[in-house]
C-alpha cells in the first residue's frame, strides 16, 4: 500500500514501465492470455494483492466497514443497549447480529479487510525496503543524454573552463546536501532527499508495530471492574472482581496482591441552573484511597478522572460512582439478619438508581427487596419514583418486597436485580397486591405479619473502579509516534536529482553548462532549484 508500482516510483527511472505491469488495467478484449499454472496464479494473486489499486480499494473498504460500528450499538461498549436494539427490531436484529454488526471490530469481515491490507502493505514495503537499502548505498545514476527533456532544464554559457565549472557546481550541490558523483569527465550526477523514502518506509513499518501492539494488548491485557463502597477494602484477586475479562493468554492467578481501601469519595455536581443541560452535570470526582502494595507498604492515593493510579502491572481508573444505601433487616424477634451498604446502580444523569436487597437468612421464607434509590427523590404518577438532582439533597429508598426462594436454580445472578420467578409479592397492609415501602434515612418500616422490619440507616457513596492492564500500549504508542515522524519526513522531504553536463561552445571557446532537474512526484520547486544551483555563485555566470 505504501506507494505505487515500485517500477515507476521507487526508482526515478525515466523509462516507461514494463508492459506486463501487475496492476495494469486488465486484459484487453481480443488479447490471448498465456495459460497460468498454480504458481503463476499465485504470483498473479500476490501481484494483485500488493498492487496500489488493491491497497486503495481496501483502504476505502476499511473506512466503509468501520462505519456500522458507530451507527449500531456495539456489544463490547454497551451490551444492554445492544440487547435492547435487537429486541426492538425483531426482524433485522437477529440477522444483523449473525452478520456481526454488533461487534464490527471483532467481526471476521472487518478483520479480513485489515489483515489483507496489512499483507498488501508488507508485500509492498518489504521489496521497497530492499530497493531503498540498495539505493542508499548506490551512486546517483548516469546523466541522461538529453538533459533538456527533463522537467526542469537551464542552459548557460560561461568563460570558465569545463573543469572549473564542474568543480564549482560540485561544491554548490554538496552545499545543498546533494550526493554528487561524476560518472565521466563532462557530467555530474547528484541526488538528495533519500529521507523521503526512508520516512515512507518507517511510516508503513510502524503501522505494523501499531497493529502488533494492539494485538499484544488484546492477548495479554485484562480488565476488571469493581464497585467499592466507602470504608470497604478491595483485594486484587479474581474472586473480588464484579466482572473480569482477561485476554486469551492471561494467567489470572498471577494478579498483583495489592489492596485498596476507599477512605473518602468526594463528588461535586453543578447546582447552577443556567446553561443548557448543565444543571446536575458532574464537576469533580475524587476517590481518596489507601493503597497497600504487595510488600505491605501502605500509602494514601487519590484517584480521579484523568488521574489514574498505577499499581505496577495494572492501572486503577475511577470510571463511575453512585450510592450504596445502608440497609438493616431484622426478623420478628429483632435479630439482625441483614446489614450492609448495598450498591444501587445509577440509571440516569440524576442518579435514579436501581438495586436489590437479598435476605437469604429470613425465615420461613427468604425475603427480597427491589426498587429505587433516589438521591433527591420525587415520586409522581407519570414517571414513578425518580431523582431530580444527583446529590443527596433528599435521599429516599423506594422498595417493593417479595418472599419465597431467592436462588431457585442456584445459577449466578445479578446482585442488582431480584429473580422473582420463585417468589411472590408481599401484599400491602391495606389489602393492596403489592407492598410499597418508602424510607428516608433513619426510618424503619415494620413488615406486615411476622416478617420483621427494614431500616434505611443512611447512605454511603461507592466508587466504580476499573483495573486494567495493557502490556501492548507502549509498543502501540511508540509505533504511532514513529509513524507520525515517518509521515512528516515523507511529506516534507523532496527527492530530487540534478544532472550537469558541460561542453565546449562552438567556435567561441566558451563553455556551455547544461543543468537538468528531475523530481519524484510533481515538484513545483524544481525549476527554482535548478536556477538556484546555477546561480549560487552569481559572479561566475
Amino acid at each position: 500500500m505504501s506507494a505505487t508500482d515500485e517500477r515507476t516510483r521507487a526508482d526515478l527511472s525515466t523509462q516507461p514501465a514494463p508492459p506486463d505491469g501487475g496492476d495494469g488495467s486488465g486484459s484487453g478484449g481480443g488479447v490471448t492470455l498465456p495459460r497460468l499454472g498454480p504458481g503463476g496464479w499465485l504470483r498473479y494473486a500476490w501481484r494483485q494483492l500488493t498492487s496500489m489499486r488493491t491497497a486503495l480499494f481496501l483502504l476505502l473498504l476499511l473506512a466503509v466497514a468501520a462505519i456500522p460500528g458507530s451507527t449500531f450499538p456495539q456489544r463490547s461498549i454497551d451490551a444492554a443497549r445492544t440487547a435492547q436494539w435487537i429486541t426492538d427490531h425483531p426482524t433485522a436484529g437477529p440477522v444483523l447480529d449473525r452478520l456481526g454488526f454488533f461487534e464490527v471490530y471483532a467481526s471476521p469481515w472487518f478483520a479480513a479487510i485489515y489483515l489483507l491490507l496489512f499483507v498488501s502493505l508488507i508485500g509492498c514495503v518489504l521489496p521497497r525496503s530492499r530497493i531503498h537499502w540498495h539505493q542508499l548505498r548506490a551512486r546517483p545514476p548516469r546523466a541522461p543524454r538529453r538533459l533538456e527533456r527533463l522537467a526542469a532544464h537551464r542552459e548557460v554559457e560561461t568563460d570558465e573552463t569545463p573543469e572549473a565549472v564542474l568543480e564549482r557546481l560540485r561544491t554548490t550541490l554538496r552545499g545543498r546536501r546533494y550526493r554528487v558523483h561524476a560518472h565521466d569527465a563532462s557530467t555530474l550526477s547528484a541526488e538528495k532527499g533519500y529521507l523521503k523514502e526512508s520516512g515512507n518506509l518507517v511510516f508503513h513499518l510502524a503501522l505494523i508495530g501499531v497493529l502488533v501492539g494492539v494485538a499484544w494488548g488484546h492477548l495479554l491485557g485484562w480488565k476488571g471492574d469493581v464497585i467499592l463502597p466507602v470504608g470497604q477494602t478491595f483485594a486484587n484477586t479474581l474472586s473480588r472482581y464484579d466482572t473480569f475479562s482477561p485476554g486469551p493468554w492471561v494467567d489470572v492467578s498471577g494478579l498483583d496482591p495489592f489492596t485498596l481501601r476507599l477512605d473518602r469519595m468526594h463528588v461535586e455536581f453543578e447546582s447552577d441552573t443556567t446553561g443548557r443541560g448543565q444543571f446536575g452535570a458532574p464537576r469533580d470526582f475524587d476517590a481518596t484511597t489507601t493503597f497497600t502494595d504487595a510488600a505491605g507498604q501502605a500509602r494514601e492515593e487519590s484517584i480521579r478522572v484523568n488521574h489514574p493510579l498505577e499499581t505496577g502491572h495494572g492501572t486503577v481508573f475511577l470510571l463511575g460512582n453512585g450510592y450504596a444505601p445502608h440497609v438493616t433487616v431484622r426478623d420478628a424477634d429483632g435479630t439482625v439478619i441483614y446489614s450492609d451498604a448495598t450498591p444501587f446502580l445509577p440509571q440516569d444523569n440524576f442518579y435514579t438508581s436501581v438495586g436489590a436487597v437479598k435476605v437469604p437468612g429470613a425465615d420461613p421464607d427468604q425475603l427480597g427487596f427491589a426498587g429505587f434509590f433516589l438521591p433527591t427523590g420525587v415520586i409522581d404518577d407519570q414517571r414513578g419514583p425518580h431523582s431530580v438532582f444527583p446529590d443527596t439533597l433528599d435521599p429516599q429508598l423506594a422498595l417493593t418486597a417479595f418472599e419465597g426462594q431467592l436462588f431457585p436454580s442456584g445459577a449466578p445472578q445479578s446482585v442488582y436485580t431480584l429473580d422473582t420467578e420463585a417468589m411472590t409479592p408481599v401484599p400491602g397492609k391495606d389489602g393492596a397486591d403489592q407492598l410499597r415501602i418508602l424510607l428516608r434515612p433513619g426510618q424503619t418500616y415494620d413488615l406486615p405479619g411476622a416478617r420483621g422490619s427494614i431500616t434505611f440507616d443512611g447512605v454511603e457513596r461507592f466508587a466504580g473502579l476499573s483495573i486494567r492492564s495493557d502490556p501492548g500500549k507502549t509498543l502501540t504508542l511508540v509505533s504511532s509516534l514513529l509513524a507520525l515522524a515517518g509521515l512528516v519526513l515523507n511529506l516534507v522531504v523532496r527527492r530530487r536529482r540534478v544532472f550537469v553536463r558541460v561542453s565546449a561552445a562552438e567556435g567561441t571557446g566558451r563553455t556551455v553548462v547544461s543543468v537538468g532537474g528531475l523530481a519524484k512526484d510533481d515538484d513545483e520547486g524544481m525549476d527554482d532549484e535548478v536556477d538556484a544551483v546555477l546561480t549560487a555563485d552569481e559572479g561566475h555566470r
Partner: protein
Amino acid sequence: MNDTLAQISSYSVYSAIVVLFLALGFYALYLARVARAGEAEVEAAPERELVAAGGTTSSVGTDEPVGTDEPASTGGHVGTDAATQEPARARKAAGIAWTLTLLGTALVVAAVVTRAVEVARWPLGNMYEFAIVGAMFTLLAYVGWSSRRDLRWLGAFVLAPVLAVLGSAVTVWWTEGSALMPSLRSYWIAIHVTVATMTVAVFTLGAVIGALYLLQDKRETSGGGGGRTAFMSRLPSARALERLSYSAHVVAFPMWTFTVIAGAIWARQAWGSYWNWDPKEVWSFVIWVVYAAYLHARATTGWKRQNAMWIALIGFGCVILNFAVVNVFFVGQHSYSGL
C-alpha cells in the same frame, strides 16, 4: 463581570458575522469586476497558457507561478491599471474586502478570548466553542497564507463556509458558558482539541480549493470561458489549484494523525483504554483512512488527479459529519451535555 464578558463575546461574534458578510460581498464584487474586465478580452485562458509556456524552455505549466499569477495571467492586456493589470474598481473592492476580513478576524479572536476569560478555562468545551474557534483558525490560516501569496481570489470561498459555521454557532449550537465535566478537565484538552480544530481549519481550506480545482478543471476541458463561470478566469489554473489543495492536505494529514494519537493518549487517561471504538473515534479513524486513500491515490501514477480530489472531498464530508452529526446524534463518550 462574567455577564459583561459573555455579552462582549456575543456581540463580537455578531459583529464579526456582519463584517465578514460584507467582506464576502466585496470579494464577490472583486471577482465579478475582474471577470467583466476579462470578458472584454477575448478568451483569456489560452493566452495564459501561451504566456506560461513561452516563458521558459520547460514543459507547459510546470513553472506557472501558483497564486501569484496575475502578471502572467492577464499578460498586460486591457488592464485599466497598468501596475496590476486589474481594473482599479476591482482592486478597490478587494482592498475593502481584505480590510473587512482583518477586522472580522480580529472580532472573532476577541470573541474567543473573552469567552475563555468568561468561562475561566480553555475555550473548547462544547460545540459552540469548537465552532467559533474553528472559524477563528480558518480565518487566521487564510489571513496568514495571504501574507505569503495573493489569495484574493480565494476570499469569497473561505468566508462563505466560515459564515455558515458562525451562523450555526449562534443559532443552533449556542451554549452558555459553563464549567467542564471531570473527564474534560485535563491539559490534554488544550493539545488534542486545539490541534483537532486547527486541522479542521486546514482541511477546510484544502477542500474549498479542491472543489474549485474540480470546477476549474471542468471549465478548462470544456473550454468555456464566459457566462456564469467567468469569474473563474481570475483563479489560478486547475493544475495550480490542485497543487495548492494538495499542499493544504499535506499539512493537515499529519496534524490529524497527531490529533488521533493525542486523543488516544488522553482516552487512556480519562476512560482507561486508548481506543474504545467510540463513535467519534470511529469517525476520526474513517477520516484518517479516507485522507490516507487520497494521498495514495494522488501518488499513484495512472490515477486521475480529479478522482483523487473526490476522495479528499469525501474525507471532508466525513469531517463535517464527525462534527455536526456524530457529536449530537450518536451515543458515545464524546457526547457533550448541552452540546
